[in-house]
C-alpha cells in the first residue's frame, strides 16, 4: 500500500471514528431532561 493511500485512509477513517465516538459518548453521558420528556422507557423512573 502506498504512503498517500495509507495517510488518506487513516485520516478519513480516523476523523469519522473520532467524531462518531465523541457524539455517542456525549449522548450517553448527558443527563436526562426532566419529565415529561420525549421518551417512554423512563416514565416510571423516580427523579
Amino acid at each position, binding site marked *: 500500500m502506498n504512503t*498517500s493511500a495509507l495517510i488518506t485512509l487513516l485520516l478519513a477513517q480516523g476523523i469519522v471514528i473520532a*467524531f462518531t465516538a465523541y457524539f455517542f459518548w456525549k449522548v450517553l453521558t*448527558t443527563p436526562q*431532561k426532566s419529565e415529561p420528556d*420525549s421518551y*417512554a*422507557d423512563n416514565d416510571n423512573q423516580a427523579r
Partner: protein
Amino acid sequence: MTSANNEAWGSRIGLILAMAGNAVGLGNFLRFPVQAIQNGGGAFLIPYFVCFLLMGIPLLLIEWSTGRFGGKNGNHSTPYILDSMASGRFWKYVGVFGIWTNIAVAAYYCYIESWTMAYVFHSVIGTFVGKTQAEVAAFFGSYTDVMQSTTGIPYEAIIFYVICLGLNTYILSRGLSGVEKVAKVGMPLLILFGVILALRGITLGTSGATEAIPNANAWDGINFLWTPQFSSLTDPKVWLAAAGQIFFTLSVGMGTIHCYAAYLKSKDDIALNAFSAGFMNEFVEVVLGSMIVIPIAAGYLGLDWVKANAGFGMAFQTMPYLFQQWGTVLAAIAGVMWFGLLFFAGITSSLAMGTPWMGFMTDEFGWNRKSGAYSFGLLVLILGLPTVLLFNYGVFDEYDYWAGTVALVVFALLETFVFVWIFGINRGWQEITTGADMKVPVFFKYVIKYITPYLLLFVFLGSLITPKGKDWSGAFNNLLNGNGWALDNASIIKQIGLADLHEQLAAATDAAVIANLEDKIFYVTIARLLLLLLFVGISAVVYIAYKKRLTERLKNNL
C-alpha cells in the same frame, strides 16, 4: 388541531439507532466504494466531506428541527409540517413529496430487501456450493425472472417479496416501539457483521491468488480505493458525484427524518441526536463500506476485474462466489452475515418509509396504527408488484430514478427554501438550538442560509442538464465556442423523453430487439402513470384532510 397520534420513542438511543438505520442502506456498502473508485479514489473524500459539512449536516439539522416543530402542533408528516411553517395552501402539496417518495421507494426497495432475505436462505441451504463465478452471476438472473424457480417454489421472487413486505407491515403495525426494537437489534448486528467481514477483507492479502489470477491481492483494492488522484478535484463531475452520494446516504429529502423527529417534545435535544445519527451513518459507510466488497473482490479476482466490474450487482452476483473460496461452512456463515447486514440495512430504512403515511392518516383521520400499516402495505404491494413482474423491463429503474433520485433533490431544495426564506433563518436557528445538548457552531446558520440552498441548486441543475459524457469542461468550452450544450441521456431533460430507449430503438434492426424495446417503452410509461396516479391520489387525500380541518375549525368557532 388535536392529533390522535400519541406515540413516543422508548429511549434516546432507540431513536438515534432508528434514525441511523433509516440513513444506513445498501448504498453504504455498494454505492460508496464504487463512487470513490470512479471519482478520484482517496481524493473523492475531500469533496465528500466538504459536501457532508455544507449540505449533509445542514439538511439533517433542517429536517430534525422542522420535524420537531411540526410535532408540537400535532403534525407528523410533511404536508402539514410545511403548511404550519409557511402561509398559503400550496406548501402542503409540496409536502406530498414526503409521503409519495416513501411509498414509491418502498415499492422497489422492499424488492431488493427480499433479495437479501432470499440470499440468506440460499446461503444456508448451500445453493452456491460448487458453482462457478458465471453460474452464481446467472443465478441472480434466474431469480429475478419470475417465470423461473431456483428452489422449486413457483414464483419464488414474488413469494419472498410478499413475505418481506408482510414482515415490514407487521412491524409497522406495532408502531414506533416495533421500529425501535428492530433498530436496537438490527443496527448492532449490522455493525458486528460489517466489522467481521471488513477484518476478513483487510487480512485477506494475497491468500486468494490462484494460478488463473496470480496477482490477486486484497491490498491492491484498498490501495486503489484510497490513493488520492488530486487532479480529479478540478472535475465538476466528481463534486456532483460526492454531493449526490452525501445526499442519498443520509436519506434526506424523503420526509422520514421529519416524521421520526415529530415524536420529540420541544424541550428535547435534536442537534446532538442529528450529529450522532449522521456520524453513525458515516462510520458504516466510510469505515465499513470501504473495507468489504472491494478488498474481497480484489483479493480473489484481481484489481483489473474490480476496475472493470465494480458496481451494485457485485453484492448478489459476485460475493456469494467469493465466499465459496472459504469452504462450505464459512461460506454459509459469511453469506448469512453479508446478506444479513444488507437485510438489516434495508429493513431499518423501509420501516422508516412507512411512518409518514401512517403518521398522516392518524393525524388527519384518526386511523389506528394497524389501519395505517396495512394500508401502507397494500399501496406498496400494488405499486411494487410491477417492479417484481417487470424487473427486466425497466419499471424498477424508473421508480428509482423519479422517486428515489429526482424527487429527493426537488423536495430538499423546496424545504430548504421554506426553512430559510419563508419560515426564516432566525426562527429556524432557534428551533435547531432549542433544547440542544451541544453547542451548535453558528457557522452552520450561515451555511444553511448562504451555501446549502445553492449547493442543492447545483446538484439539481447538474442532474437537469448533465452534459454528454458528463464532460463538464468540454461542455462549457463548446458553449463558449458557440457550439451549444449537448445533453447526456442521463440528464433529467433527456430522461423525460426516454431518449436512451428511443435511440436504441432507432438503431435496432433485429425484430426481437425492437419488440423488446417497444415493450420497455410501454411498461416504463405505465410505471410513470402509476407514480403520477399515486401523487395525485395522495394530493387528493391531503385536500380532503384540508377540507376536514376547515369544517372542524368552523364547528369550533360556532
